[in-house]
């Protein structure tokens, strides 16, 4: 059966917008990455791979940025996955309490990054904040910190905020994955006298692996894209200690007016994300658990 030609009209509005505001800028990012364009003047030169060379060899801030991004990523991925999985495991059954609690834990996800940034700026505030006051109440004054002002720990403070922000969302993905495991599998394990750990190792984990992959991949990408939160909480400071690739692109382009160089960093960023997404797609394809 042939579909009438009018079908192509259905692509028209979307494709038009997508080409102008997405495909074209993506291609031109690549183009500008080989130039020394400042973003405003009409004239610029092609400088070959100079921008890329600079990023990898001469720019110590960019190197620091990648390091920060990795620190942020590791803390977020590890904490968020463990928290989400542990809580998903104890809240597996649908009862009134678990449904309410899941909704509560999920709640921060619907807030804007700016709101979350303000809430946590207050929590971390060296003098007013809940955190330092709480620590001094329980006699742990010596742990009190300038959580966002100390260059050694600021990036970790941000990572904890990110976990608070999104762990509830990952928890729901785990619950969905775990609930898709047939109950009979557990009964068989019980009859065979498997211990709790054996049941987890032999039944739960293999069937959980697909959702774990999704959570880890998604969290990884999210932690690279955490522009809003970082921008609103620390703006990359103090002394670039919380600058991640996304915020660095912004500052190179819009504060340093080096559009060409910012484009080169964008292309590197795109390659990193594409690689992680590719792994995620691969994991999804082998995913036989349905939600």
């Amino acid at each position: 059966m042939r579909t009438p030609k009018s079908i192509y009209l259905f692509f028209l509005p979307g494709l038009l917008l997508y080409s102008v505001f997405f495909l074209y800028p993506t291609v031109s990012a690549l183009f500008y990455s080989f130039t020394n364009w400042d973003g405003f003047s009409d004239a610029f030169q092609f400088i070959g791979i100079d921008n890329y060379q600079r990023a990898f060899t001469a720019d110590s801030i960019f190197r620091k940025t990648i390091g920060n991004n990795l620190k942020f990523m590791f803390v977020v991925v590890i904490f968020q996955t463990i928290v989400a999985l542990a809580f998903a495991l104890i809240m597996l059954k649908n009862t009134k309490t678990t449904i309410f609690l899941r909704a509560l834990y999920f709640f921060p996800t619907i807030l804007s990054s700016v709101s979350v940034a303000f809430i946590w700026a207050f929590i971390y505030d060296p003098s007013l904040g809940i955190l330092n006051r709480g620590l001094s109440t329980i006699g742990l004054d010596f742990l009190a910190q300038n959580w966002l002002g100390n260059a050694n720990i600021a990036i970790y403070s941000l990572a904890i905020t990110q976990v608070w922000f999104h762990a509830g969302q990952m928890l729901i993905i785990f619950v969905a994955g775990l609930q898709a495991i047939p109950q009979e599998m557990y009964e068989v394990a019980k009859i065979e006298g498997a211990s709790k750990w054996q049941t987890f190792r032999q039944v739960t984990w293999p069937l959980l692996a697909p959702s774990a992959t999704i959570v880890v991949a998604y969290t990884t990408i999210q932690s690279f894209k955490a522009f809003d939160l970082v921008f609103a909480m620390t703006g990359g400071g103090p002394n670039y200690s919380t600058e991640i690739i996304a915020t660095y692109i912004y500052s190179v382009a819009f504060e340093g007016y080096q559009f060409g160089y910012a484009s080169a960093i964008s292309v590197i960023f795109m390659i990193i994300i594409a690689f992680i997404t590719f792994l995620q797609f691969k994991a999804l394809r082998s995913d036989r658990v349905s939600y």
Partner: protein
Amino acid sequence: MLFRKFSLIVYALLILIPLLVVMLTSVKTLQETFANPLGFPEGGIKFDNYIAIFQEQTMAGYFLNSTIVTLFSVTLTLLFASMIAYGITRLNSWIGNILFILFTLGMMVPAQVIMVPLYSLMLDFGLTNSLVGLILVNISSTLPIAVFILTGFMKTLPKELFEASTIDGAGNWQMYTKIAIPLSLPSLSATAIFLFVMHWNDLLYPLLFITDNAYKTLPLALLEFQGQYSTNYPMLFTGVIIASAPMVIAYVFLQRFFVAGMTAGAVKG
């Protein structure tokens, strides 16, 4: 068992205490906050900050801008994405597959990657400081994920439905509005909620394209309050509550849909 309960309560408190503090702080004065940041306001609950923020800021304007941008972005993304999903489903050929890949490729490119060229494009088009500009960019940035989710759903609809109505002489537009859309409502509503949260909360695009107060959306306005009010948390939190109110109210009533929508976005995005 006791440890489980204890952990559940601790996590619940980790969410509840900050939210409670935000609400309490918004009904305190700055002096009360400095004197006692976590307790109840000594002089009783006052809504002065709410009145002040509406007087000092063009709050109603920001709210309206956010509402306009979000409504148009969500509706048009859903319309265009569902049309594309329908097209891909019906074409069912290599052209359809290529278009599907072309759109989903967009999911791999974060908004931050194209912000530099997009900025100069918007400048050239005269679309900075314009709600229309913001809406157009919003649509193209969420189109990929919406196409991905909706195509996945529409492909599961039985082909026979479409074939039967072709024989009955129904055109594509009729089949799209009378069959594809009504049957895709569950998927459309989940996608809609995901898009609502994304667009309502978006900071990056307004930050890049809007400098004029008349066109600022809530997240951008909120960010700039930080510059004005510095550590005047009562005012900042009043702003937070006003900016979050629509999402929170919707969440309370449509919880189940929110969870479904936001997780679909995560799994597929």
